[in-house]
């Protein structure tokens, strides 16, 4: 017990330091738009990873089609703000809601599918959505939609001159969603979700309806990703199918928590903090030749992790933190017992 308290105190200190650093980052950076943009994207991707994790990590329903929800949020925001002149503060929740509804509509038939049947279903749904929106003229088709440029400020959620505002909005979203996921993980709802992942039949035999729990997880997961899509639309002020609906986006959303640690609160943040700088700096080093060095490293890491460390970088870091405190002898004994158990 005492061990656990010390461990959580360590995390609390880490969290406080991380939070302060995140809040002070723009001031510390000064006039460096490249780094500011990168930090904004880290926050956005970490939030996306949390969204994926709710369904894929906790409930165990791996989706390779979460781009649909990102696209839904982005397009609903773009339509409400661009075509109807609504406030983004109305459009963003509407986008999240639309994504949640689409999620439930997809989940209703697809949750009857298990394992790779489900994964492939999410892939074909996402690709169909891309093709349909790409061909649908009222939504701008392949040309996409522009959002109107309005005066800077939080009221319009636009910060054209000084992008610091976008960073704080993304950071607030990340903090909010992290708190939500943390609470979810400790709630009875979270326990049922993990039980569904581990043994669906057992959950059913205890009188819970896995279908209903999965649908709630889907709605929550889709809403988080949809809100991120809405934020992205406000940030870039332009949406088109390749930027918000591409299959590669769905892949990226899944990559973040898979690398960082599936079904953990810190996983998506670690995953995004590794992925985004890697991709941004490799783009600079290779001067935009589209060489994709980041994905090369990422793919290799995913393979290594799935073979050696299914719990992701969060697991590796957790072990390191724990290992640093444990006496060397105890660690060796533990490893031997582990090896004996596996053999």
């Amino acid at each position, binding site marked *: 017990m005492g061990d656990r308290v010390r461990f959580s105190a360590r995390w609390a200190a880490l969290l406080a330091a991380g939070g302060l650093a995140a809040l002070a980052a723009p001031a510390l950076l000064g006039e460096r738009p490249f780094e500011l943009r990168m930090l904004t994207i880290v926050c956005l991707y970490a939030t996306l990873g949390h969204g994926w994790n709710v369904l894929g990590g906790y409930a165990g329903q791996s989706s390779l089609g979460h781009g649909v929800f990102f696209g839904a949020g982005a397009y609903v925001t773009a339509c409400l703000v661009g075509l109807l002149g609504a406030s983004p503060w109305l459009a963003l929740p509407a986008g999240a809601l639309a994504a949640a509804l689409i999620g439930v509509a997809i989940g209703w038939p697809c949750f009857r599918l298990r394992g790779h049947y489900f994964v492939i279903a999410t*892939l074909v749904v996402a690709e169909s959505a891309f093709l*349909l929106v790409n061909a649908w003229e009222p939504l701008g088709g392949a040309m996409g939609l522009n959002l109107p440029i309005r005066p800077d400020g939080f009221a319009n959620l636009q910060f054209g001159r000084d992008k610091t505002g976008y960073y704080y909005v993304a950071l607030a979203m990340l903090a909010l969603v992290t708190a939500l996921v943390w609470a979810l993980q400790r709630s009875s709802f979270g326990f049922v979700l993990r039980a569904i992942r581990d043994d669906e039949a057992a959950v059913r035999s205890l009188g819970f309806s896995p279908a209903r729990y999965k649908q709630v997880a889907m709605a929550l997961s889709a809403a988080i990703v949809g809100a991120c899509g809405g934020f992205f639309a406000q940030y870039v002020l332009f949406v088109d199918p390749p930027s918000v609906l591409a299959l590669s986006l769905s892949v990226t959303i899944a990559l973040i928590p898979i690398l960082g640690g599936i079904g953990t609160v810190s996983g998506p943040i670690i995953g995004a903090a590794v992925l985004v700088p890697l991709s941004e700096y490799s783009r600079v080093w290779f001067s935009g030749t589209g060489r*994709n060095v980041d994905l090369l490293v990422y*793919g290799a890491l995913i393979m290594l992790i799935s073979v050696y460390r299914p719990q992701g970088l969060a697991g590796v870091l957790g072990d390191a933190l724990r290992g640093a405190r444990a006496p060397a002898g105890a660690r060796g004994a533990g490893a031997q017992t582990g090896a004996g158990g596996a053999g």
Partner: protein
Amino acid sequence: MSEQLFAQLLVSGLGMGFIFALIAIGLTLIYGVMDVVNFAHGEFLMVAMYASFLAWQAWGVDPIVAVPVVAAAMFAFGVGVYWLLVRRVLGKSMHSQIFATFGLMVFLQALAQFLFGADYRAVQQSVLSGVVEIGGIALPGPQLASMAGASVATALLYVLVFRTRTGRLLRAASQDRVAASTLGIDADRMYALAWGIGAAAVGAAGALLSSFYPVFPRVGGAFVLVAYVVVALGGFGSIHGALVAGVLIGLLQTLAGFYVSSQLKFVPVYALYLLVVLVRPRGLFGRI
């Protein structure tokens, strides 16, 4: 509409159908033998297409000539992937199995982009380019050749799996791994063989495809999604099923592309996947 146009649509649909079938047979064989879906299967196709393209660029080898060589090389590649990666996640969670080949997919795509850039590259003036006139109907040469090549490859595969001792061992391992092991069948070797044959089939498809389709790092995406639909429609694990379903879907997407919209020709194919797995999960010829 003219008979000639319809005949051309039919040939083109059948040509694509045989290619889809060949890609899907590799996927379904691996799935049938070991219950693992290869999420990097589209990238296997891409690797084979690059191999075929580079052979043409460097030595002027025509893609149709390269088919057996590329298939053999891909056999080795498939066995290598099994030994280095897949074998290590067997018996681990579904997540690990899915993400291992998913990581391979991301890696191979990025590697191709790193080495060759995102440009579309195409074989020029293959012996197959141009048209063949049969009874006053002009038929595209590459599609005819892909039909012929894919039929031969499928027939060879069929003989191997259903008419040889090796094939019997392979099928035994796929039906019951434990029972097969007690009879002295080395399941590990059979799995490696399934990966080799599966990769060789998709390799033959890639070499045939490269004679009339450009190659680029993401080329596998569209084809592999269709291959999943083919495998589902045919019944996961069924080789006959993949063949019949591949031809049906080749025709469906060609006709949908002509009569509905060329932009949306894959949407009915994807919708078919959901329909099959929800209404009849065992597909046309599945065992489940």
